[in-house]
């Protein structure tokens, strides 16, 4: 895989996700770029973070998002 392709596969945009889900690669030219370029990483991270066990299949969230659960230290009194 070339560096450019590798970079593309890391993207969390809707177009990449649809392709990962089995859509033909030509989907990106069939749909408006405003839609295929939509960043779904925050959504994927959120769905994985609030307790829904599966999250969204086929989507890897590469960096920590503000929408992840932040567990707090507990001091018992």
């Amino acid at each position, binding site marked *: 895989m070339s560096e450019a392709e590798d970079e593309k596969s890391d993207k969390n945009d809707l177009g990449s996700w649809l392709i990962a889900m089995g859509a033909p690669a030509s989907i990106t030219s069939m749909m408006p770029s405003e839609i295929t370029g939509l960043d779904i990483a925050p959504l994927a991270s959120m769905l994985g973070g609030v307790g829904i066990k599966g999250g969204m299949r086929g989507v890897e969230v590469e960096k920590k998002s*503000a929408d992840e659960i932040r567990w707090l230290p507990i001091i018992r009194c």
Partner: protein
Amino acid sequence: MSPNLRITCGVERQTGSDAVPGAIAQLGESLMQRFGFFYPTRVLLGGLNFSRDVYALLSQSGHIKYESVGQLAQALSDLDSIRIALGQIDSEEFAIWCGLGKSEARVHLLQLMSVIEQARIRAQGAELRLDFFEYRPSPRALFRSLAQLALVGVQCDVRQLQRVWPRSARTSLSAKWISKFQAIKVFSGRGDLVEIAPLQFVFTVKWKGVGNTDVAIGLIGNHVIIDVGGVRSFVELPAACSRMEPGSVRLAKNKFEINFVVKESEWPAS
């Protein structure tokens, strides 16, 4: 108000339909119909892991059966998690996305959120019956499950529990356990933010007995998550907390307090 739903816990599960409730299918279809080539409920919504336990709560059935109290508590917790996630999906970005695709997705999203809200109200007003015919948990395990159920807003009638508990001498329920079961209180789902010093606040959440549970407390977006063994309840934080830094949690027997310190850089000068 008389309940229009009966939930029985502690019975063998009936084999039921895996049919997707209408509101969920409708949202999936409206989200994905433009793409045409894949089956939305199996991909997008399947990925959300709407379990059959959650489907049962969303159904119009007048009688739902769960294998255990813990399973009911988990289903309600999952339903709440989904409601929180859907609430966050309903953003400006999502509205624009729907507009671009001339999709009815937002309408169906709000419809699904409303269905979930109604299901929550139904479950909280339901007549809960316990049944130990197939399996009787230990009092300790049952206590934990009932505490989890109380965390998600459902109360168990201890008199009904006593009536159905096996009566043989070896398995009798001691007065100590009955008293413990009676002490379980439903969580209200609310908290209060109070200023304790300049730029320092404390968010107090009261729930009787919380200090005796193996609770974990976290934050996601504008909600506090209270997690007892994987069963979660969510408390909305005041908007001001988004400009504060959370500290540690002080956990007492009947309440916990989260310390917040104002991030001065994000606070408007007075």
